[in-house]
């Protein structure tokens, strides 16, 4: 059995260049790898006079290397991971942990224990409420600018929209930042960047106009809103909750489960890497995702290996969806039985629509759909059920399509999906009592 697959190692890399560099190191290194129950380590000759000391924490995947690289994991760590992907664990020599491994692992174990036993500093609920009330009070006043702008917008019509200079939007966008409602700009930028050459552009613009209109009304009548709706709206407006704030808030929902890491999706834009890690609680049937960022390959504080399971307590962000989460306490990677409750295509679609009707700002719905096959039709890839009902799989590469075909071989499987306007994004599949992350 191998500790990693090559794909998992590639997922761990901060960027594509690191994979290339790691493979180069892998090819050149004169490998002498040792293991204990807790870790794997090796020394790799680098450009410095002394070899670099590389180690991997096995129980709670993490890397450390003595090289000066600011990337994380560095190419040496990744190359050791490649070694583990290409060599059976059984073939690695067991040895007593050298001091540099032992100290590091001990420190990590102590840190986890400390976090778990750290006395909780409860934030005063009055303080939280006061802060929130102030924000809403300002919002109700400031949103009138947007309301006025919207009225002008529909009065003047869309016909000259393409001729409008960027200032038309930029001024408002700047104002929304000043008003501390930067989240609104997502809608405004969508209108600003619409492709007028594409048919149906009017529909796209009007959809954003409709959402902005609902947003204005929601803010104006915020006192009557359902608390969850209001919380979700706060996130939408860009009023982010800091991690510590969320963890220390006594009202925060904590979900303790064995979480299967379904998928890790990275996006790079102007040096900023965003990482969305989708998780599935195998006993609670809850879906969650972490959203974190890394700037210029600095790496992420936690390592999530796609396909692994980990015992963890997640702190869920409040709101309608209650999917976004942060890690509260991470245990070891583990095994646990599944307790899946997949939905039929019809029910999944109904649930998504219901959520959308109740909260029109629902963009993604996370769920598990039952009994699907994957099929190729007119250059598009679909999940299809026995009634020939289809869900279009967007952003599905040939590689992934091949993978799903190869795993399922034409049998029915359950699919973990993110459902939205475009169709579904396939995160993982459940087949033969096993979850395969994609």
């Amino acid at each position, binding site marked *: 059995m191998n500790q990693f697959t090559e794909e998992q190692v590639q997922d761990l890399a901060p960027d594509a260049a690191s994979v290339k560099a790691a493979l180069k190191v892998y090819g050149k290194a004169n490998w002498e790898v040792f293991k204990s129950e807790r870790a794997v380590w090796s020394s790799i000759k680098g450009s410095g006079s002394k070899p670099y000391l590389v180690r991997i924490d096995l129980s709670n995947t993490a890397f450390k290397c003595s090289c000066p690289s600011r990337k994380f994991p560095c190419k040496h760590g990744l190359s050791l991971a490649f070694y583990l992907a290409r060599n059976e664990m059984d073939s690695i020599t067991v040895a007593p942990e050298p001091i540099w491994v032992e100290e590091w692992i001990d420190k990590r174990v102590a840190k986890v224990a400390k976090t778990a036993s750290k006395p909780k500093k409860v934030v005063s609920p009055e303080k939280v409420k006061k802060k929130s009330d102030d924000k809403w009070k300002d919002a109700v006043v400031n949103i009138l600018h947007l309301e006025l702008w919207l009225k002008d917008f*529909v009065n*003047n019509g869309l016909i000259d929209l393409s001729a409008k200079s960027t200032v038309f939007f930029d001024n408002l966008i700047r104002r929304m930042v000043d008003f501390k409602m930067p989240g609104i700009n997502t809608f405004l930028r969508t209108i600003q960047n619409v492709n007028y050459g594409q048919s149906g552009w*009017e*529909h796209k613009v009007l959809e954003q106009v409709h959402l902005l*209109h609902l947003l204005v009304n929601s803010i104006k009548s915020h006192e009557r809103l359902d608390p969850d709706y209001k919380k979700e709206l706060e996130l939408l407006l860009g009023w982010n909750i800091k991690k510590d704030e969320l963890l220390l808030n006594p009202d925060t929902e904590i979900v303790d489960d064995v979480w299967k890491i379904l998928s890790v999706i990275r996006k790079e834009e102007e040096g900023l890497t965003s990482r969305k890690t989708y998780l599935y609680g195998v006993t609670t049937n809850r879906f969650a995702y972490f959203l974190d960022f890394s700037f210029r390959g600095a790496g992420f504080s936690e390592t999530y290996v796609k396909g692994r399971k980990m015992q963890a307590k997640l702190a869920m962000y409040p709101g309608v969806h209650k999917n976004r989460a942060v890690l509260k306490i991470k245990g070891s990677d583990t095994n646990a039985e599944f307790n899946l409750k997949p939905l039929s295509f019809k029910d999944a679609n109904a649930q998504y629509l219901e959520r959308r009707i109740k909260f029109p700002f629902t963009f993604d719905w996370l769920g598990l759909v039952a009994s699907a096959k994957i099929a*190729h039709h007119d250059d598009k890839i679909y999940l299809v059920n026995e009634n*020939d009902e*289809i869900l279009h799989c967007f952003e599905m590469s040939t590689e992934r399509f091949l993978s799903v075909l190869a*795993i399922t071989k034409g049998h029915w499987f359950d699919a973990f999906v993110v459902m939205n306007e475009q169709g579904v994004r396939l995160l993982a599949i459940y087949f033969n009592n096993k979850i395969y992350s994609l």
Partner: protein
Amino acid sequence: MLNQSIIKAALLGLKSNKIDKTIFYPNVQNYLSDASDASDELLFLNGLSLSFQYFNAGKELMKIEKLGSQVPICPEEELSVVDAPWIRALSTISKGDFLSLNYYSFLRILAEKVLAQHRIFPADKMIKVLTALQEVRSKERRRLGFKRFYKTFADRKLYQSFEELEAVVVASFGVSGSWIYKMMNGSDEVDLDELNAKERLVVFKEYWFSNKQKSISFLVGFYEHETPTNQKKILSIIGQTLTMDDKDVYSFFESFFENNSGKRIDILRRYFETVKLFAGLQYTHNQLVESVFEKIWARKGLLKKSLELLPAEQLEPILAPLSFLEMDSFVDEDGLQGLDLKLFFLLQIVPVERATQLLNVKLEKYIKTISEIKSLEKNKSFDLLRALLRNVLKNKNKKIALAILAQSKKSNGSYVELLLLFSDLEIYNFLEKNFAIIDNSELDVFEILVKELNCQETWPKKLTRLMLNRLLTHQHFYSYADRRNQALWLGGPFYHKDVMQIVDQLINLDEHKGAWKTDEIQSTIQNIDIAKSAFNNALNQ
């Protein structure tokens, strides 16, 4: 979707156009009626939001009829990974003369996939696959297909050795591989636009021999835009089996030549006439052709006594009966063009017995004369004896085959492929009687017997002994490399320990001696004697 009235209202704006709530869906209008005193902008924005909500609420799942049934369950693997059709496919690819791009691109995708992650085909099956394909690979590894294919991936350096990479690629075959391929492609349709010139030619060849209709579509769609080389090669492929019944092909080319002109097209036109000539000859394989053949043979007009071509004016009347074949195309300032080709073709199609009867010559004389006819065209030379050989192979006439072999026994022995007509025992008997052929043929006999006839299993031990004996007693005749190769070929079929020992000795002898020295000959002979007896013992066991 929003209706056109809503979009129109939104485009024009509300400033100069009074909002009419009937533009919204009736259900939406009911809600809007409660807010009749609202401003136009508010009415529109509310209507818009309600319309979107109304539209979203009613979204139903789409269907594609029978899509689910288009994904059948993959058949169970009979072998662990590899099944016979795929081994055959791999073998075919590796031969290089059938470079199916479908398989090729499929391999590429699978290989990339496997390289990226060991998921589709588990690594533990690779060894089995490699073993299963060892035979195919060892025979064909130097051929085009593998070489080209491997190179692409070897560059990736994801694997330390070539062999590892090969195992991974090879492991991509199997029932599931085949099944996935079908799922991906639906059918074996090839997108010709995606292929390069060489690949298109392969596809055309496949079409021409398996599906005439497709090949006509290919011609109609692509011929005009093909590269000049491909245009010519396509004609050559067509020429192999064109018959007078292929009306569509004739009409395509007629219109092609009618609508195109230029020097290049003229060359193609002439080439097509040749192709037509062949088709005509095949079709009208009759007295007329035979009579012309007779004239050519009897030198009544075509050839001088020296077997060289007569001047064009003397040739024309003789060729008149062939006028229906548009012989004009073959006459230019320098005389006749393509006569060699015609003779070559005639020799191929007129059965030898019929020819000798017509010409009233004996078989041996016939063969001898053919082998002596000088080439008429300076730049090209046609091996007329080879035409005869094809004729014999086609008609499976062993008697004539033996006669040709006997004629060529002092030549380079390149006609030994005629042995393909014989049984193993007949070959053995023939070789025993005509040892000179083996002696003169260098590696050809071995290559053909061992590689082409694939007779490792049935090769008589007696023949092995005969061959090895020759090898041992004619050391002076062969270079070191030849000796080793031959010895290995001989040893190869049996992999017998003792035979291989002899082979080793031979190799050692050659390596160390280089030139044979007088004082060493004696000991060498002794060694050989020992080897001989060891070998004889081995064979007689």
